[in-house]
């Protein structure tokens, strides 16, 4: 795992990454085994939900159907919980990998070798992308495996699309914090900006259906393009996924540009 900067960056995540993935397996087990209990009361819940005011329904993530596992996951798991665990992991490692090394002084060591700054940052970005894809894959495998064991019907293909969408959201935030670190060399600043942006855009997206003047702002939030529980029910919106991918590429290009041109702090 020491063959190059890409592998070394993955190696740096091997402990926290393993815990993250193991935690994901545990949590997917919890929600899957919880589902039969919810499903028993699905009719009552659905009736309740149908009578909810439009506004509250939107806040809870739109279309909700507690009678299927996908519906249950879309309403609870993919709207609130997954964004949090992906956002936190993405920001910790996105800001840690350049700015963290810079603050510890090991970036100077890396760059004393015949490698360009561009190459270092591309390797590090690739490692982040791979880690988050591993997260999204584990999420999917965990859910279908537990559902299989519990004998619950699950829409595996739609679920895969939901997991892909959360992976893209994670990658976006990882590259956002990477960009902050590449531009400033400061871990605190880059993680602060990325977390702040995450929380703010989440709130804008969540409240936009209720507040008319927020509505246009929705289009500027990554959570809108992520789609909450929607991909798990209706499949990936390719246009929206494309926006996330495009924004991530722009962030990566900015990272390279900013990192190449500035003075290193240590």
């Amino acid at each position, binding site marked *: 795992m*020491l*063959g*190059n*900067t890409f592998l*070394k960056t993955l190696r740096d995540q091997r402990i926290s990454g393993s815990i993250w993935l193991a935690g994901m397996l545990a949590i997917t087990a919890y929600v899957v085994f919880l589902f039969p209990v919810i499903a028993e009361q699905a009719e009552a819940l659905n009736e309740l939900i149908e009578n909810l005011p439009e506004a509250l329904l939107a806040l809870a993530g739109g279309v909700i159907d507690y009678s299927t596992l996908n519906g249950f996951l879309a309403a609870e798991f993919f709207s609130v919980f997954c964004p949090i665990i992906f956002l936190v992991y993405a920001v910790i490692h996105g800001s840690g990998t350049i700015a963290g090394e810079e603050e*510890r*002084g*090991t970036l*100077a*060591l*890396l*760059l*004393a*070798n*015949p*490698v*360009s700054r561009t190459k270092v940052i591309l390797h590090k970005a690739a490692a982040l992308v791979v880690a988050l894809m591993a997260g999204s894959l584990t999420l999917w495998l965990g859910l279908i495996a537990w559902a299989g064991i519990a004998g619950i019907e699950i829409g595996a293909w739609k679920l895969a699309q939901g997991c892909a969408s959360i992976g893209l959201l994670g990658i976006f935030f990882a590259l956002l914090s990477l960009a902050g670190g590449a531009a400033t060399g400061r871990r605190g600043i880059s993680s602060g900006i990325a977390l702040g942006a995450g929380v703010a855009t989440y709130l804008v997206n969540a409240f936009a259906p209720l507040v008319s003047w927020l509505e246009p702002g929705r289009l500027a939030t990554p959570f809108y393009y992520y789609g909450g529980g929607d991909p798990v029910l209706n499949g990936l919106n390719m246009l929206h996924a494309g926006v996330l991918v495009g924004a991530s590429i722009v962030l990566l290009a900015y990272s390279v540009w900013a990192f190449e*041109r500035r*003075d*290193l702090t*240590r």
Partner: protein
Amino acid sequence: MSRGAISTEKLTKFYGDVRGIHDLDLEVRPGEIFGLLGPNGAGKTTTIRLLLDYIRPTSGRATVLGMDARRAGVEIRRHVGYLAGDFAAYDNLTGAEFFEFLARLRSNVDRAYLNQLCEQISFDRSRKIGTLSKGNKQKAGLLQALMHRPRLLILDEPTFGLDPLVQDQVHNLLRAAASDGVTVFLSSHILSEVEALCERVGIVRHGLLVATETVQSLKARAVRRLTITFSEVVPETVFASLPGIQNVEVSDGRVRCQVTGSLDAVVKTAARYRVQDIVTEEPKLEDVFLGYYSDDDAVAREVKNAG
């Protein structure tokens, strides 16, 4: 293209309003050991970080091994070994893993040579870098700078904070490298270190290169503080008139003075009386500057002219 191992032309770096280094014109010849000598904040680290493209000059330019420092960084670093002043390694790697990682990164490492060096300075590669003492960590830093047989070594205060024994080991490694034809560029704020190691010295202060000298002429200029205790009374006037002597104080058979350059005249004069003890203090860096400036006003004027 310049023939020098390092050559700078009016190299300047300002951090906002703070002067890092100003109008530096420096020429390091291939194969020599060159010392950049200066007190804290003189601009030594700034100069070194400019050479390695960690920071970018405000104006001026630098060539390293004949290549432009700004444009050919990757190619330059292939042939340069660098040890940072605040060298930090991956604490969670063992020495062996650390060297392995760097060897893959730069793919021009001479592993047999690395093994030989590790033997030579008895460096234990099985321990995690985070658990090493300051001296052993510094050895790891030096080994990573040497292991690809660079043509040029750039070392920022390589012996700072090391005990004399390890310091000696480091000096020997550098001398051995130099005798293999490696150019060595190092910074230091210890006069005796550059005297012991270098052929030529650049003296920097407040971001300005004050002088470039051979070590011999630096020694000739060095101001030493001397205290001679006699077991008889000596006349006050004998010492005051000697060449190169200043600030003579005589009291109770004890003479204190400052001597520039050779101590020959003073010692021979003292020998005419009964000497109990002679103490010379290592010349302090600030005293070296006395040879160039009588006071800080001169520095201030110089700065004004330069700026």
